[in-house]
């Protein structure tokens, strides 16, 4: 199992550009999450999904959009990139309904810089 994979690993965007961060998991987890981590800060939840076709906002959703058409994929879309979106983005998945004590499994992260 590859677990949770994310692409790209690094990206530099210009202000106003858009991009999609890809996230795929092969563990058949229902729950998926997108976090951002700013320097010296903890992770903040952007969006989450509890299953295909179901998404909801987290703590910091502004400037982002998500979709969940399949169990495996949970892409994060940035429209009109702004310098405030410079951060490291982590995708994670979990399966709380399987009694796995809510462990979240993380991807390697995408480092995004907006100039």
């Amino acid at each position, binding site marked *: 199992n590859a677990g*949770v994979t994310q692409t790209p690993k690094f990206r530099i965007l210009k202000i106003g550009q858009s991009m999609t961060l890809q996230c795929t998991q092969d563990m058949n987890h229902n729950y998926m999450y997108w976090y951002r981590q700013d320097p010296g800060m*903890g992770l903040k939840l952007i969006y*989450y999904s*509890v299953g295909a076709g179901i998404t909801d906002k987290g703590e910091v959703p502004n400037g982002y959009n998500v979709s969940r058409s399949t169990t495996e994929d949970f892409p994060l879309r940035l429209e009109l990139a702004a310098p405030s979106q410079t951060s490291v983005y982590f995708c994670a998945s979990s399966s*709380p309904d399987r009694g796995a*004590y*809510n*462990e*979240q499994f993380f991807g*390697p992260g995408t480092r995004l810089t907006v100039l």
Partner: protein
Amino acid sequence: AQRVTQPEKLLSVFKGAPVELKCNYSYSGSPELFWYVQYSRQRLQLLLRHISRESIKGFTADLNKGETSFHLKKPFAQEEDSAMYYCALIGDSNYQLIWGAGTKLIIKP
């Protein structure tokens, strides 16, 4: 409000010395608490959770509801323990982790 505080951004100790990484939380109910770790060039992973009452890689953490703390301890630090450590809690929801800012642990030889 739910909050997790890790007061130390950096903790540096010598190999063989005891280690304690502090975590305090704010939550009115019964939280579910975790420690996650990120070793250099590796992804974030679960280290331990309070409900399992387990010891992983020599680390233990006890939930103290009176002091609202969940400090991570190890009696004898090893160089391979050097990493970023994050404390997190699940409160009202079954999915949303609330994270501390993390503590960078450096074990000096």
